[in-house]
């Protein structure tokens, strides 16, 4: 290796470290703020606590608002809606890719809905949910979230299904497998990493979703985490310590999930982006 190469390696390394620092700095600052003494938060914005560490903000965050309830609601909504999304999306995308069911129209229609800003359908969705008597109920939000994530699941799963050699399935049909059996016993094991990363992405998108949750839930019993903590801005005044703790309480589960599945997620996103 010559000097030029060493130099360019060092520059690359410095850029990578700088990039990491920019990503992590805001998160570290919020974590540090959640541990600062409230008086210090009001008067100074140093990165790390200067006047000692306290768990007061964390205790208050769980005591002053029903944070546990919000987190519980979000968990229920995210898990249920993801299961519904996958149950609908996996068979559908398999048949549309492999048997061209619905022709070219169906996939482009489904993906087309992804272009549509959700605000466009909030008024009708609000009306439909109300007619069904599901407003302010978790079931209503679960159904809306599972619908919302279907185009995303289509987009993420597409390349995985396309990459399976069709000969494998032909062999299965010769052996007398039905379409459904083929999907379950031959195709599913092969696309499992894709289904996994798609599931994780849908789960997180539902957990993070704000607009539909904002218009469909209003009582404390049905609010999800984003709606619950959004009240820290405005209604409760600026309680930055409590707010930081509450925000982190909803961020940490997501980050754990992302770290566990990071390999899958990077691969899934990369494939969908690259295929063009």
């Amino acid at each position, binding site marked *: 290796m010559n000097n030029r190469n060493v130099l360019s390696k060092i520059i*690359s*390394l410095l*850029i990578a470290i700088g*990039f990491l620092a*920019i*990503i992590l700095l*805001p998160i570290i*600052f*919020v974590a540090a*703020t959640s541990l600062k003494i409230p008086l210090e*938060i009001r*008067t*100074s*914005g*140093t990165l790390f606590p200067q006047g000692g560490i306290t768990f007061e903000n964390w205790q208050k965050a769980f005591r002053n608002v029903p944070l546990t309830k919000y987190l519980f609601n979000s968990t229920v909504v995210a898990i249920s809606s993801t299961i519904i999304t996958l149950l609908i999306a996996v068979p*559908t995308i398999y048949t*549309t890719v492999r048997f061209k*069911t*619905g022709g070219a129209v*169906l996939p482009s*229609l*489904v993906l087309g*809905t992804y272009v*549509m*800003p*959700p*605000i*466009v*359908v*909030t*008024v*009708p*969705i609000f009306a*439909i949910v109300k007619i069904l008597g599901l407003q302010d109920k978790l079931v209503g939000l679960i159904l809306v979230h599972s*619908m919302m994530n*279907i185009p995303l699941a289509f987009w993420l799963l597409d390349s995985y299904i396309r990459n399976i050699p069709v000969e494998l399935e032909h062999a299965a049909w010769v052996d007398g497998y039905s379409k459904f059996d083929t999907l379950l016993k031959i195709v599913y094991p092969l696309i499992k990493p894709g289904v996994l990363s798609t599931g994780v992405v849908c789960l*997180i998108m539902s957990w*993070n979703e*704000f*607009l539909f949750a*904002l218009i469909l839930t209003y009582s404390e019993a049905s609010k999800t*985490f*984003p709606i619950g*903590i*959004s009240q820290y*801005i405005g209604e409760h005044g*600026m309680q*930055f310590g409590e707010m930081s703790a509450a*925000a*982190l309480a*909803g*961020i940490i589960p997501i*980050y754990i999930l*992302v*770290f566990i599945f990071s390999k899958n997620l990077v691969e899934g*996103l*990369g494939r969908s*982006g*690259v295929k*063009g």
Partner: protein
Amino acid sequence: MAIPAWIFLAFFSIIPLIYVVSTSLTKSTLAQPFKDFIWFNNFKQAVLDENFGRSLVNTFLFAFVVTTLETFFGFLLAYAVRGIRGLNTILRSIALLPMFTPPVAVSMIWKLIYDPNSGLLNHYLMKWGLTKGLIAFLGDPKLAFPSIMFADLWQWTPFCFILCYAALQALPKAPFEAAEVDGASGWRVFRKLTLPLVLPQVIVVFLFKLLISLKVFDLVYMLTFGGPGNTTQVASFYIYRVAFKQFNTGYAAALSFLMLLIITIIATLVTRAREIFMRSSE
């Protein structure tokens, strides 16, 4: 097995869109749907509505500025660190974090950073003598929008980075080996080989993020609520206000329809432009 997809389309796009179109011709309110048929009066009002025009301009300004910067920096970063294999696994895992952080939490993080009294930014700007007084980033009409954009940059540049990185990894090896044998300079390889090969994919990343950015709502709702004045009001937020704060759903439906129309036209145009571009580059 495709029936569920049709049900999805029926409930999530076909019925809602019919509902939007029919409601847009009425004086509906949130409590009284389909009240008084008034033909195209809502559309007439919308065309003359300065706030709506302004919110559309804001939406496109936001989407184009952030998407351009995010794709540019994302690609640059991906290109810069492509050589260091070992660190990249960690780097990409960390880079996943911002895009998966709940937008509400992202807003809170940046609200805190921008705050005059408790914020990181003002503290260090003052400490290092870069500014004389405290700056209300989100309260200043000139700074509020760029501040929202910066929060979006933090959240989505890593996403563009991951996609661009994958695109760079997927490039064929042979042409680069040939170029190395020929002793081509780094800049020449980049300009003549890397860039033309990877550009179509980078454009895909750009378009995909552009479509996400046109939906912007959460950050504006949380960081400025459209203010100060109406300086940061974007289309989604304005429609939300008309429908769920003023309960004027008939008018909101007309606005939604117009917004969807404009976005569809733009999406079609950029897709065509991309097809033409890709054909000519072959």
